């Protein structure tokens, strides 16, 4: 089974739109906004939790991206560049909380490696489609520490590569992989009882 991921074609198209926006084409930037706003909101609303804060992050990120679009060189994808701006917006509000969460994470996530994780592929089809399960995934993602949650959202929900997530968050690729592994394990553990239903 293959999971849909952002295509190389989209990267080319985004970069072309960004180039046109930098030349003053407002519609090109509007097109980029339409392409990326839902994905940015999905992450911002789950990182900020507060509706107004999430709106500030979304609006702030697009505003900064628009005013700096001429600085976008296309080395990274537009999405990576935009999410990096958004991460800075978000972390500007919450940097001290993140540091606290990282300390807590180191203390509480030990022992995950040895835990037997549930086989989610055994989920009955009706359970996999149920709103209860969707709610449970929401709760499980929401209960992750912030450093794990942001990696889980960027990697598994938004489909950025490990390298792109590292660039967005300004951390190493091994750190991304470590956090992704721990986030997935924690979410899977939370979903365990659905296998029996």
């Amino acid at each position, binding site marked *: 089974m293959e999971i849909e*991921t952002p295509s190389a074609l989209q990267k080319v198209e985004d970069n072309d739109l960004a180039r046109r926006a930098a030349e003053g084409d407002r519609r090109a930037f509007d097109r980029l906004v339409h392409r990326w706003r839902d994905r940015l909101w999905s992450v911002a609303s789950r990182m900020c939790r507060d509706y107004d804060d999430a709106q500030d992050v979304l609006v702030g990120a697009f505003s900064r991206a628009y005013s700096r679009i001429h600085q976008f060189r296309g080395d990274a994808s537009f999405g990576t560049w935009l999410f990096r701006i958004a991460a800075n917006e978000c972390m500007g509000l919450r940097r001290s909380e993140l540091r606290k969460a990282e300390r807590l994470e180191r203390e509480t996530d030990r022992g995950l490696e040895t835990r037997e994780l549930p086989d989610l592929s055994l989920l009955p089809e009706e359970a996999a489609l149920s709103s209860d399960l969707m709610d449970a995934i929401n709760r499980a993602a929401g209960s992750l520490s912030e450093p794990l949650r942001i990696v889980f959202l960027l990697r598994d929900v938004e*489909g950025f590569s490990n390298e792109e997530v590292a660039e967005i968050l300004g951390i190493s690729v091994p750190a991304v992989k470590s956090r992704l592994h721990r986030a997935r394990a924690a979410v899977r553990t939370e979903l365990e009882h659905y296998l029996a239903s």
Partner: protein
Amino acid sequence: MHPESGEQAAVDCGRVREMLLEIGSGGEAALAESLQRHLDECPACSREFRSVETLVRLARRALHTPVPEEVCRHLDQVLFGEGDHGG
């Protein structure tokens, strides 16, 4: 390392564990034939692979949230001076 996989498969188990961390970003599309063969032969790795694929698929369905219309209007207002001028 999965005990039932034997010594020869242990290297492949390690590679599969690395591949698990590429699922969802397009990395799995480049899954080598030898790794696919290993998944066919190693129940533990196959179980892990299928579980992570399922998790990613469910997470995308559950956690993708369209931006509310009122936020769109506010965004358009800020960026382009359009949208709901009353809000």
